[in-house]
């Protein structure tokens, strides 16, 4: 059954990408070790998906797994081995 579409595939409500949970694409997920983390913010700088949220004090908290695609850049860049990539269990 053909769906009604906006002409030319135009998106009229901005910011609609927040509804597209790209976390589904992940094969490996980053596991963050709070004890080893020095809050140097290198992972936050490198994350291409802005999936490392900060708290009100500017400290990183748990990775946002709704949008993290599991690229592993944070684990590769972390100088303290505080992030490990583990296979996603679904």
């Amino acid at each position: 059954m053909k769906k009604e579409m906006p002409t030319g595939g135009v998106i009229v409500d901005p910011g609609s990408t927040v509804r597209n949970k790209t976390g589904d694409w992940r094969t490996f997920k980053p596991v963050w070790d709070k004890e080893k983390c020095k809050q140097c913010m290198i992972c936050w700088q490198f994350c291409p998906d802005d999936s490392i949220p900060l708290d009100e004090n500017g400290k990183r908290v748990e990775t946002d797994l709704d949008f993290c695609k599991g690229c592993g850049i944070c684990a590769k860049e972390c100088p303290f081995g505080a992030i490990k990539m583990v296979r996603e269990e679904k």
Partner: protein
Amino acid sequence: MVRKVIEASEAVALGVKLSRPAVIPMYPITPQTHIVERLAEYINDGELDTKMLHVESEHSAMSAAVGAQATGVRSFTATASQGLALMNEILFIASGMRLPITMAVANRALAAPINIWNDHSDSFSVRDAGWIQYYVESAQEALDTAIQAFMVAEDHSVLLPAMVCLDGFTLTHVYEPVDIPSQEEVDKVLKPYKAVHAFLDPDNPITQGAIGFPNAFMDLKKDQHDALLNAKNVIKESNWIFAEKFGRGYGDGLVEPYMMEDAEYAVVALGSVCGTIRVVVDELRKKGKKVGMLKIRVFRPFPEEQIVEHTKGLKGLGIIDKEVSFGQEGTVYSEIRSALYDKDLTINGFIAGLGGRDITPDHIRKVFDSLDAEKRTEWLF
């Protein structure tokens, strides 16, 4: 309205000037260059208030036209041959985003070997790019069609880009008397462009050209296909409006029959060669032969119903293709055979005029002489 003897390239440029596009990205290429040269002169002389963009390639010219049109204004560009080939990927983006850009194509052969002369291999190579394709026969038709192309492309039931194809040199560089309508007359038939779905408005932000996932892509393509079919009615309507206001029409807008009413044998062609065919039809008619010509003015959308209608009662039909689908046959021939597959009619295809090879009255006489026996495709050297 004034009547002047002008080059067909200038006729296109005048049609565009009278349509007042806001943006014209330009990149020169033979045999199209005179069109954008004239437009640059109008802008320089203060006769046309348009933003002219000098770009570094045809890929950029079409990209700039897409960008301009996406802000909600009318844009135009022109190209030929290798230039059209370089634009290829952006042609599909223009139609997919439903941007009613209008472009003149001065038909020229595609290399190799390099060749600047006329055939239809360039625009036929983008047959499936989702653009409306007009093929014009005269300088007058070039001017009229430049204006009609905007009328059709921008219609809300269409919203698709349109190509006005005119034969390189054999039409672009030919001088003919042309009736030039006044700005007031054109303003009555072509309203200012008002974007309905694609525009730049910071108070009303939208996203254009976003990704289309498998759950949306196919539905959007069906809409695009239906919109191109919708163009048939609008093409007819704009042709009728011109006939009423200016006293000039081109058949029903999609096809133009010549001496077809009682014809037993007919030739189908596109573009400037139709002038030569008319001469041969007149000559054969004087000898008592019942012959006619069917000019295809619009190749996309394909005027299938009109072809079926006009070929009723014929004994033989010849199709002249100024391009070849290598490994198969002429493309117009293929499509007409498909449209007439269940009709009892001998249909032969003729490949002619490649790379500027002359198509002479003798060639056309030979075509009319060989429509009795089925022989599929023949090359007219």
